[in-house]
């Protein structure tokens, strides 16, 4: 089952996804597909449902209607499907969510050891490679609380990559960072995008979007208002809402 993609290379398929929090309609008829290796940036005003949307893709939020197919597996209530999808998708959070009681290296090796059942030695070798890739190998024996925000977020990326995911989800990865640390995290994300990783990023870093995104999705009030390449979105947005929002943040 796992590892299969559709013939046209769609790795994520969302059809008419609806979600409610009580009476509040958080996602309305969200329909989109993401191709393998595509980098998609999702942006929009606060409360527009963009975080909720990417959190439905690994079932941190449950959708009530519609279809989500990740890597050929349909998201149902079947816990095995959910676990398989979670193994295939890495997630990076706004607040890092590193495990403060574990050292950096243990944060990175935890899932490979317990979920992928790899040996400790194998996982540590791989973890050190990943920490080197995100530029903080020398911090491996420290605790997360001893690192700066930017370093913590890079550890979080390494931790997600350690599971060798086919898709990476980023939920506002730079929003909680001090300005001088945003670049070091974006640099890692750019390198990842160039390596061919499928990425869904909720972010307001428009320079990043312009540089690496293949496609941008603008969401408002739980709906996809408009999507297109960065050139289309920045130079010729079709909807008034998109124009207004871009004029406010650029």
């Amino acid at each position: 089952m796992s590892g299969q993609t559709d013939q046209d290379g769609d790795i994520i398929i969302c059809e008419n996804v609806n979600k409610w929090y009580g009476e509040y309609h958080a996602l309305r008829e969200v329909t989109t597909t993401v191709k393998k290796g595509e980098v998609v940036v999702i942006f929009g005003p606060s409360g527009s449902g963009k975080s909720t949307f990417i959190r439905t893709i690994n079932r941190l939020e449950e959708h009530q209607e519609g279809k989500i197919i990740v890597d050929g597996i349909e998201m149902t209530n079947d816990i095995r499907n959910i676990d398989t999808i979670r193994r295939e998708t890495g997630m990076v959070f706004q607040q890092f969510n590193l495990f403060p009681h574990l050292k950096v290296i243990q944060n990175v090796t935890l899932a490979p050891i317990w979920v992928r059942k790899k040996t400790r030695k194998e996982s540590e070798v791989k973890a050190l490679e990943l920490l080197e890739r995100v530029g903080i190998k020398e911090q491996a024996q420290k605790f997360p609380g001893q690192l700066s925000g930017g370093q913590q977020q890079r550890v979080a990326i390494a931790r997600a990559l350690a599971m060798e995911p086919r898709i990476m989800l980023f939920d506002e990865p730079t929003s909680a960072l001090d300005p001088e640390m945003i670049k070091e995290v974006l640099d890692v994300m750019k390198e990842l995008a160039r390596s061919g990783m499928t990425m869904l990023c909720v972010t307001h870093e428009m320079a990043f979007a312009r540089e690496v995104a293949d496609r941008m999705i603008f969401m408002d009030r739980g709906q996809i208002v408009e999507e297109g390449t960065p050139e289309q979105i920045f130079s010729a947005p079709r909807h008034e809402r998109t124009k207004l929002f871009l004029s406010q943040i650029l």
Partner: protein
Amino acid sequence: MATEAARARPDRPSFVLWDWLRQNLFNNWYNSVISVVILVVVFQAVSGFVGWALTAPGWSAAITNLKVLTTWTYPTDQVWRPALAVWIVALLLGLSGGVWRGIPQTLAIGFGVIMLILGVLAFALPPATTPLPVSGTFFLLISGVTTGVGYGLGLRVGEPLRWPLVISWVLVYPVAVLIIRGVGGPLPEVPTNLWGGLMLTMLLSISGIVLSFPLGVLLALGRRSNLPVVKWFCIIYIEFIRGVPLVTVLYMGSLMLPLFLPSEIRIDGVIRAMVAVTLFSAAYLAENVRGGLQSLPKGQAEAARALGLNTVQTTLLITLPQALRAVIPVLVGQFIGLFKDTSLVVIVGLVDLLGAAQNVVGQPQWLGTPGGVWRETFLVIALVYWIFSFTMSRTSKTIEENLSVGHR
């Protein structure tokens, strides 16, 4: 301005007693009056107490009754068995101190040194009322020496002893109970209605702490479970136990339970008290652990789930370790409370350290002592309770400091 202020800031002034007194106790007239009054009262109280303590006639009551206070009516010719149990623990403590250093080392050295000092002091004390095969002096000195030997051995052997030691610590409680209770042959059975004193207090406290911990953690997790049956069972249990006093639970266990059970089934009184204390403590512990679980940011469990860890792994590897760390001070506070609450078993006819002390006070030979011996005896008991409680409190503080390295 700010930089000027910083430049003008003087070096830390050297400590002058007179300046300190003037600033803190005599900085204006009414504070001076309050200080003088308090100093007079404190001086009166301390000098009065010291004067009394030095001349008090009743200290010998506690000292000559050490056997009663420590083991109550345990057969005199078998007293070497609880002593042997203590020596085994002393050896394990010494070994652990040598192997792990850190907290076990502090505990081992503290225990060994106190035992040796008391043992040496004991030469100067009047003899016990009943001659024992194991004299108090001998017992104390052997305990101290055993700890020391264990410590030396632990230092020398080190690493290979770790796992055997962990297993020994798990087994030491049941083994100690077996030695004290007896299995026949060279260890004739001593029925539990003869047990008592400090020995009973320790047995009840240790079983209460060791057993209520896992039970409390399970109840806390159960209360947060998604399964309605488990969840409601835990809520009802916790809220019921928390709604009644420990005395009620002890009464239920000791007096009511035998009425409900068929007459052939007799559950031992000490075991009933152990179960009651454990069940009572577990309910409170569950709420403390639940508090720790709720204090964790939601993102911790989300991150673990997003990595693909299942619910059990998320709980055991991520949420529970952090929750327990957060509530160490509360848990140890609860264990200290449990240790002191065991004195309530007097109500259901068991004689713990406090009960034994009450009995010593009432012994006819002290009738002639002016003012009785209760002050001196209860002070000795209070000191024993304090030593154990204070040790627990300090140990928890050290654990907290060790664990907080590099956190947040």
